């Protein structure tokens, strides 16, 4: 069974370690906050200027002045702090933020990522993604393995304009967990429950390294 978006987020949450500052991108990555295991102490950074971001507010308690990078209303945890955009990206570029989780349209076997532009069709802009991927020590991509036409989004080389070069460390898709072995390909670490290695091979255009038995993801 291919994973739901929530399940992708749930699997990525297992990668988050105690005492990490984490930046979550828009979309599936935002959901990761809902699945952080008990006893793991993390603080979420939102690049519009929040460290210690909390969950959505209760109905009626929304504050127009308190939003996340996806422009959604949020709350602050105790001990949270607000800062300007330059300070926010000092945290990011200066590698004070430990882990970045973001979405992608394409990832290459070299760890290149494309997620900001489809020439002539969709131009939303890169937002903070280029700063994040250029600097983060650890980058995990949450994505669907194939597009709506069934074509692979894990490629030998990205076809879309790049967001960053050689930066992605790990991919969690609806089919698999993969490690980017720079210059060698995607190493298959885990399969989604009920998804065969063959199905993952067929859905991956880039080189796929399959060594030994590949375990199913555990939830």
């Amino acid at each position: 069974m291919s994973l739901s978006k929530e399940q992708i987020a749930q699997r990525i949450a297992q990668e988050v370690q105690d005492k990490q500052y984490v930046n979550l991108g828009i979309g599936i990555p935002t959901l990761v906050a809902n699945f952080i295991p008990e006893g793991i102490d993390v603080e979420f950074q939102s690049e519009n200027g929040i460290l210690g971001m909390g969950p959505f507010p209760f109905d009626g308690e929304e504050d127009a002045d308190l939003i996340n990078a996806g422009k959604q209303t949020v709350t602050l945890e105790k001990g949270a702090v607000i800062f300007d955009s330059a300070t926010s990206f000092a945290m990011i570029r200066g590698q004070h933020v430990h882990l970045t989780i973001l979405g992608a349209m394409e990832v290459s076997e070299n760890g290149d990522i494309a997620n900001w532009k489809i020439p002539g069709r969709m131009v939303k802009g890169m937002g903070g993604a280029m700063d994040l991927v250029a600097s983060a020590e650890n980058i995990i991509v949450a994505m669907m393995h194939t597009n709506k036409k069934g074509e692979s989004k894990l490629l030998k080389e990205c076809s879309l304009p790049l967001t960053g070069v050689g930066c992605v460390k790990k991919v969690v898709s609806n089919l698999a967990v993969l490690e980017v072995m720079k210059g060698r390909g995607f190493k298959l670490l885990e399969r989604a429950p009920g998804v065969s290695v063959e199905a993952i091979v067929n859905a991956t255009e880039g080189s796929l390294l399959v060594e030994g038995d590949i375990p199913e993801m555990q939830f």
Partner: protein
Amino acid sequence: MAMNKKVADVHEALQGVENNMTFMLGGFGLCGIPENAIAQLVSLGVSGVTCISNNAGVDDFGLGLLLQNHQIKKMISSYVGENDEFERQMLSGELDVDLIPQGSLAERCRAGGAGIPAFFTPAGYGTEVGEGKEAREFNGKPHILETALTADFAFVKAWKGDSAGNLVYKAAARNFNPLMAMAGKITVAEVEELVPLGELDPNQIHTPGIFVQRIFQGVNYEKRIEQRTVRQKA
């Protein structure tokens, strides 16, 4: 005695604004945008302007209002995803657009205000953003040269301010406002509440008044929420 930067209203605050000028506008999405200044720019009808702003508002609010009027010649932004009119004008070539990484945008404004003409950053190396820019390796990692940004006018929005131009922002409405305040040749601050001199705690001021040339108390803030997300009480 502190200098008096107070002006009567938005009309006085925007005196000297002309066609083809470059403006900076604070805000992230619709959060912390200078609503009064934007309304006045619409009413003045200035055209051919360049706007430096992280986003371009939505179709019927924020900078989207200036786009609808075709007043903007060029936008310098990092993310414009919520504005159909923006995308249409950009793809049709009516609007000149420079999309730059958000951290580089923030730092370029800060640098502009801080007297630093350029800096190296890793963001955008190996992408379209790095094309035509000087690249250099530091500590084994490639970086690109980004130049400072300044503006004829910077329009910022704060929560509280005083007649000396000192500003305090509220929550995530701070974002780009303090950086753009530094980078305007003329910085116009609109505040929700203009308080008497001496009321703001000097230890808690975010933007020192030296960066602000004009300040006024804004009116009729809509503070529209772009994505209202809530959870239910258990």
